[in-house]
């Protein structure tokens, strides 16, 4: 294992992972609810987990501590802390709901409070990698169960009966024999004095008694605020005396400011100041790119002022970056041998002896996140103290990076997490908050930095760009006997370390070296590719190109051998088994232990079968329509998608129907799983139809939603059906937010082939179908 085998740790590139003593005082500060009590903590014990996850290995690990997460006020209101960021997945509701379920709290008497960034106190807070439910289902249940036991003990003492005779039911503790009851509020003070149960002694609720979990009937806690305009996102924070800033950043990544002329800008009504912003040298990690800031009394004036700036830039080493030439470089590299990252059997020999070799060359361009809320943050720096309000996926990392950037102690930094207007990985990087901090420090006033959509498109942390080449060898019976896949793409690690030319284990492990097919001879190679812009995580990350290539090739093989796509897919998956990837060094399994989360082809087959059945695979279709299928395991979940496409004579495509089956193990809120998968279909369709960021002279050529379009409602699938595969009794929870994306594009492309006979190998589809 190396230090970048885990994106959670990659964030910690700059942070040494400290073992901190959590002082009692800082723990008790927890919720700060006066008049209430804060429950005491059981110690975390590994044994207590029914299954093992990688949660403990994340920076700062897991905190199983009800004193930190739960408070009960005398009026019975239970406050539960959400320590993960809400960006649309529903996590701010789901995690507290788990606690409420186990403690028998009545959800209507529960308030959710957002935790600020403090990983020593709350454990890891990175909301990424589709990890929150996966890592926190069990800890949250234990926290809730501890609280319940303490309330029960307090009631039993009050009544002078054995604790075994009482039980917590819906916000009360009851003694059936004497029909006595006490509410949680009335018991709060006594419960606080109770012995904290050890985790090993906790009896978790029998899932058949769940009132909330798995039911999907609880709406997200922010629903009313969202529909009334009260919900507060990063840009909605307003402080007295706050200044508004926009920044002109170097148009080429790694470029530098040479000079600027602010005379015209300063004439704009409302503009107050123009100043330089410090930038960091390439590769700049999550640090600001630098540039020139316009400070104004409102954002509109700041934007207008920025338009009037005259700036000279030095483009630096990436000024030659050009997408057409780079594509050729990647494709050339994919045609030559590269670093071998998996080798089972002898694919070279098997390809030579094969009856027939099918070659597929695929291209997947850079993508921008364009979360609906462009980055924005507010900072208030006073002396050696800083307070930040920002829509960040990584409040703990933001805190550390702010402290380092301002050179102040970390405990002097408070990071308040607002709602995120979408994240998709972009807001795992806190550069925009650091910009606000730098400006506030210099101005001595609170500052809001607002990115425009153009800023977001020009200066993002893009999804990588890949050339994928697969050669599959068939014997005379049409059986696939050889598979050689080369994946060439700049790595996210290049944003942290100069000279990076290979994909990191966490990228290789996303659908490339973990390819699950039962083929005797498999080679995976990763030829070199250098980065010329900032590369970052984009929802489902390298699974996008890898799944696109692998699942498109399945469609190509089905065609070459005259087989039904689904039958081909099942034949390649092969027998139900646990896949052993012994030839892969540093196999990255989404940070999870392979024992709890192996690649299980029975589950892979099952989602294919479920989606085929529910999605009415092989149904009769009108002329011009076609069905495509794809399956992919990512974030340790299993997902299969069937897409029906219609292509008219002019080549215009519509999507009448999408069916997706997901096996994400034990789950919490099926209603939010459904919404994530519905959304993933839209994001998949967007990237397949339109998604492409290109560079010329080192600059991004797209600007806004006109030249980087995303799917709108009039082109959305008419129907998206989500089929959740019921988990086995002991199946641990797995990811939901990201895994819906990867199978969509190849299923669509396979459907287009079925409808038209045209095989799309290069994304986006763009005008390729036009006649």
């Amino acid at each position, binding site marked *: 294992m190396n230090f970048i085998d885990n994106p959670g740790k990659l964030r910690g590139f700059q942070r040494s992972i400290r073992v901190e003593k959590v002082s009692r005082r800082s723990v008790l500060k927890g919720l700060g609810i006066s008049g209430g009590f804060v429950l005491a903590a059981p110690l975390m014990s590994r044994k207590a987990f029914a299954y093992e996850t990688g949660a403990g290995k994340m920076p700062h690990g897991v905190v199983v501590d009800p004193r930190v997460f739960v408070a009960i006020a005398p009026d019975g209101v239970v406050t539960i802390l959400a320590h993960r960021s809400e960006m*649309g997945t529903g996590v701010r509701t789901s995690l507290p709901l788990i606690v409420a379920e186990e403690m028998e709290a009545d959800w209507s008497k529960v308030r959710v409070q957002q935790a600020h960034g403090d990983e020593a106190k709350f454990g890891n807070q990175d909301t990424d990698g589709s990890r929150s439910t996966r890592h926190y289902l069990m800890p949250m249940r234990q926290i809730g169960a501890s609280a319940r036991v303490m309330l029960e003990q307090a009631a039993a003492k009050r009544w002078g009966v054995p604790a075994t005779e009482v039980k917590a039911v819906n916000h009360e503790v009851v003694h059936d024999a004497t029909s006595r009851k006490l509410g949680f509020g009335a018991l709060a003070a006594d419960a606080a004095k109770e012995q904290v149960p050890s985790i090993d002694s906790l009896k978790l609720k029998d899932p058949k008694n769940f009132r909330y979990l798995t039911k999907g009937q609880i709406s997200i806690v922010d*629903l009313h605020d969202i529909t009334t305009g009260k919900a507060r996102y990063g840009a909605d924070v307003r402080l007295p005396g706050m200044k508004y800033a926009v920044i002109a950043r170097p148009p080429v990544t790694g470029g530098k400011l040479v000079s600027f002329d602010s005379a015209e800008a300063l004439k704009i009504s409302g503009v107050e100041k123009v100043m330089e912003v410090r930038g960091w040298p390439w590769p700049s990690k999550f640090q600001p790119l630098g540039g020139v800031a316009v400070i104004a009394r409102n954002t*509109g004036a700041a934007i207008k002022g920025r338009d009037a700036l005259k700036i000279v830039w030095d483009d630096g080493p990436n000024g030659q970056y050009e997408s057409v030439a780079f594509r050729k470089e990647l494709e050339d590299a994919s045609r030559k041998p590269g670093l071998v990252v998996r080798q089972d059997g002898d694919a070279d020999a098997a390809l030579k002896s094969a009856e027939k070799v099918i070659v597929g060359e695929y291209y997947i361009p850079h993508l921008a996140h364009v979360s609906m809320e462009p980055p924005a943050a507010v900072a208030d720096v006073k002396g050696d103290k800083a307070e930040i309000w920002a829509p960040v996926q990584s409040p703990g990392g933001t805190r550390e990076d702010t402290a380092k950037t301002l050179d102040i102690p970390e405990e002097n930094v408070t990071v308040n997490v607002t709602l995120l207007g*979408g994240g*998709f990985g972009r807001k795992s990087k806190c550069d925009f908050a650091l910009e606000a901090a730098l400006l506030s420090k210099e101005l001595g006033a609170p500052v809001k930095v607002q990115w425009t*959509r153009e800023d977001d498109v020009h200066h993002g942390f893009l999804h990588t760009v890949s050339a994928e080449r697969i050669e599959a060898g068939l014997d005379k019976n049409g059986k696939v006997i050889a598979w050689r896949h080369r994946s060439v793409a700049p790595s996210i690690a290049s944003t942290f370390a100069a000279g990076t030319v290979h994909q990191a284990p966490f990228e290789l492990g996303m659908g490339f070296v973990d390819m699950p097919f039962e083929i005797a001879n498999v080679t995976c190679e990763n030829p070199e590719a250098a980065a010329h812009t900032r590369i970052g995580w984009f929802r489902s990350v390298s699974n996008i190109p890898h799944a696109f290539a692998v699942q498109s090739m399945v469609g190509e093989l089905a065609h070459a051998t005259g087989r039904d796509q689904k039958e081909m897919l099942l034949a390649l998956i092969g027998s139900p088994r646990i896949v052993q990837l012994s030839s892969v060094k540093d196999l990255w399994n989404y940070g999870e232990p392979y024992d709890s989360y192996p690649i299980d082809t029975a589950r892979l087959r099952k989602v294919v079968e479920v989606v085929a059945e529910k999605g009415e695979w092989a149904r009769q279709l009108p002329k011009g329509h076609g069905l495509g299928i794809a399956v992919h395991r990512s974030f340790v979940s299993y997902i299969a998608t069937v897409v029906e496409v219609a292509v008219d004579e002019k080549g215009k495509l519509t999507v009448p129907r999408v069916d997706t089956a997901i096996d994400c193990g034990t789950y919490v809120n099926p209603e939010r799983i459904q919404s994530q998968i*519905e959304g993933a279909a839209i994001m998949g369709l967007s990237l397949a139809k339109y998604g492409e960021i290109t560079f010329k002279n080192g600059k991004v050529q797209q600007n806004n939603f006109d030249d980087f379009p995303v799917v*709108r*409602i009039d082109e959305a699938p008419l129907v998206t059906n989500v089929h959740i595969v019921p988990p086995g009794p002991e199946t641990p929870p797995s990811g939901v937010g990201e895994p819906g994306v990867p199978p969509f594009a190849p299923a669509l492309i396979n459907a287009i082939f079925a409808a038209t006979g045209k095989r799309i190998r290069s994304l986006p589809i763009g005008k390729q179908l036009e006649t």
Partner: protein
Amino acid sequence: MIKITINGQEQTWDGDPELPLLWYLRDEAGLTGTKFGCGQALCGACTVLVDKDAVRSCITSVADVAGRKITTIEGLHPTGDHPVQKAWRQVNVPQCGFCQAGQIMQAAALLMDNPKPSHDQIREAMSGNICRCGCYQRIENAVHLASTGV
């Protein structure tokens, strides 16, 4: 000095008359429910009602709406119970929620204009509003529900 009425309250502005209404609402009037998504009339996040029309406040200047009545998401209904808002909650439309104020204002304008839109009409009328989270199926269903009685 420009006079405008926002959510029933008269307000005045003596700054840059060209200032986009969006920034007046958000930064000067403190009504942050109206969102910035693109600044170019491409996404609909900034949609407000000007009299009865849905308007993109990011490309509408304060001067353009002098003397007009502006309704933002905050003023759509006193308790947040406009049929569109109720339908939105019943269908659990939002994911991140950032586009939803604009979506709701657009839908409210649509229903004033056409109380019983067909699904095609809904898709057409709502096509200027982007939802990057992809809540479209639910948006369509919620507008339909609002039009048939919540």
